[in-house]
């Protein structure tokens, strides 16, 4: 690959030069220090979560955290069963994916296989702009417009004022560019010979896109979905404002729920005083959240490297 050769400076070439000016070693030391900040950040995050969670688990045994029960930290009988919060998070993941995957893949196929270059050049930046809208704006929109102006008049009392459906709809809009953009990228990487072979055999444009290119780009498409899941799991404002604050073990999109992030924000807003067991539960929930987002992100990274290597 010519391009790769061009861009990669030979490793260690500059380091071997002996005639640095005085002071330059100091600058290089400062650069190394900058580089250490990112490592320090990760160490601090893990340290804070582990330390806080350890404190929590000294009072609430791990088995109690993982038994099937209720998440009821503020009222008697106090109970800390994480599953209601996990279910709340999975509820929103499920419904936002049900919406975002078909629309995201549809956009990816349109931009990659159908759109004339000029249309593509206009649509793509607009689509990517969806990811830069602040989440508090989406949260406002989910609560006022989607729920109060559309869903409530449509479904009446069958849907709670605070419900996962409204949150999932705007969440789907938020993650759509992630799915569309990375999937299109992966489809773009599929070698031309595959398209041309299929066209030569008489396949139509739709058949080439859906039966040749999409399966060939499968690992990239999966990576985009995993990244999207990680974003939904970690998103806070939309679910805190629109999905409610009543932990419930359900996947129904109509009943109020609470997600892990929603609970963390509730504690952050001052609902639990420092030193109480409710306050230290923040770290146990945070640990769970961190584990979930990390595993989705790492799985996505593995798939991305795979699709990049696949056809090179």
């Amino acid at each position, binding site marked *: 690959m010519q391009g790769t050769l061009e861009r990669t400076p030979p490793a260690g070439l500059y380091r071997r030069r002996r005639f640095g000016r005085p002071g330059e070693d100091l*600058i290089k030391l400062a650069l190394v220090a900058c580089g250490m900040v*990112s490592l320090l950040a990760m160490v601090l*995050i893990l340290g804070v*979560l582990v330390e806080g969670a350890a404190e929590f688990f000294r009072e609430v045994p791990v088995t109690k955290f993982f038994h099937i029960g209720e998440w009821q930290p503020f009222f008697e009988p106090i109970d800390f069963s994480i599953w209601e919060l996990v279910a709340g998070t999975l509820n929103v993941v499920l419904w936002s994916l049900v919406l975002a995957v078909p629309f995201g893949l549809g956009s990816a196929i349109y931009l990659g296989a159908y759109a*004339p270059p000029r249309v593509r050049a206009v649509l793509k930046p607009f689509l990517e702009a969806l990811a830069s809208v602040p989440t508090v*704006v989406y949260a406002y*929109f989910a609560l*006022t417009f989607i729920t109060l102006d559309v869903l409530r008049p449509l479904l009446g009392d069958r849907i709670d004022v605070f419900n996962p459906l409204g949150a999932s709809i705007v969440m789907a809009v938020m993650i759509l560019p992630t799915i569309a953009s990375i999937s299109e990228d992966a489809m773009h990487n599929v070698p031309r010979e595959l398209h041309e072979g299929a066209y030569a055999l008489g396949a139509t*444009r*739709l058949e080439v896109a859906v039966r040749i290119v999409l399966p060939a780009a499968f690992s990239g498409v999966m990576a985009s979905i995993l990244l999207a899941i990680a974003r939904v799991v970690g998103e806070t404002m939309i679910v805190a404002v629109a999905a409610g604050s009543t932990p419930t073990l359900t996947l129904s999109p109509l009943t109020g729920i609470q997600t892990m992030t929603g609970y963390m924000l509730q504690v952050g807003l001052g609902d639990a005083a420092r030193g109480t067991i409710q306050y230290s539960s923040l770290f146990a929930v945070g640990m769970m959240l961190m584990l979930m987002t990390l595993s989705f992100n790492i799985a996505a990274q593995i798939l991305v490297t795979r699709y990049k290597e696949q056809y090179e």
Partner: protein
Amino acid sequence: MSAGIAPVERFASSPQLRRRQRLSEVSRWVFLVTTLAALGVLVFLGIDVMRVGSDRLGLDFLTSYPSRRAADAGLRSSILGSAWILGMTLLFTVPISVGTAVWIEEFAPRNRFMDFVKLNLANLAGVPSIIFGVLGLVVFSRLLGLGPSLLTGALTLFLMIMPMTVIAAQEAIRQVPSGLREGALALGLTDWQTTWYQVLPYAAPGILTGVILGVSRAAGETAALIMIGAFAFIAFDNTSVFDSFTTLPIQIYNWTVRPQPAFQEIAASGIIVLMGIVLAFNILAAILRERFRR
């Protein structure tokens, strides 16, 4: 992808072939609709916010402190707080993110440890913002004793946007042709001089684009700041980095979750201001990127 390839539509003969081709033509419009659907939601959002929020927009609204009564409330302290915190975040981000990227791309050896550093950056980029808030709360606010101050907020937001700004700066530095470096080294510049006078100026627009997008993300961040305790009623102008503060997104959140509709109306007005700022950042980044591409 397939723009240059002539589709076989014209040679339709058998009914089965015609059906397949019709299906293919219909699918074009189906996929177009799926692409436009999400943009439609964005347009609805824009119209809805303008309809509800434009009444209150005015100099009065921008220069009043928040208030118990929606009719008197304004954005003064949140605009000032946002300006302070973004400025400070920028001060931390520019040297440290660019320094990290320069170190990784120009000076560090290629070995297992550096692979780990890069992997760690990628993972850090995926950490939810509320977790950064927990970090800020425990380390900056409590351990360092800074409280829910501007400094705590800026340090937290800096750590949050650092991974994405470093990755953008790395990309920009990698785009610098190696001929530039080699020429400079051949003329006897030291490696640091080469970086400072040749590589960084060439990569500057790309680096700046990443920094602006990072700051734009910080401008809209709510959860991390609420977590460090910045959910307060602020009716004074910030003068020191140790002041408590509020920001535009926090103020919007505050008004959105109140039961009275009058507050939701001014939340919409606040959203117009915030979206204006975020849009300005993004347009600036787009212009820089275009210039970079030339």
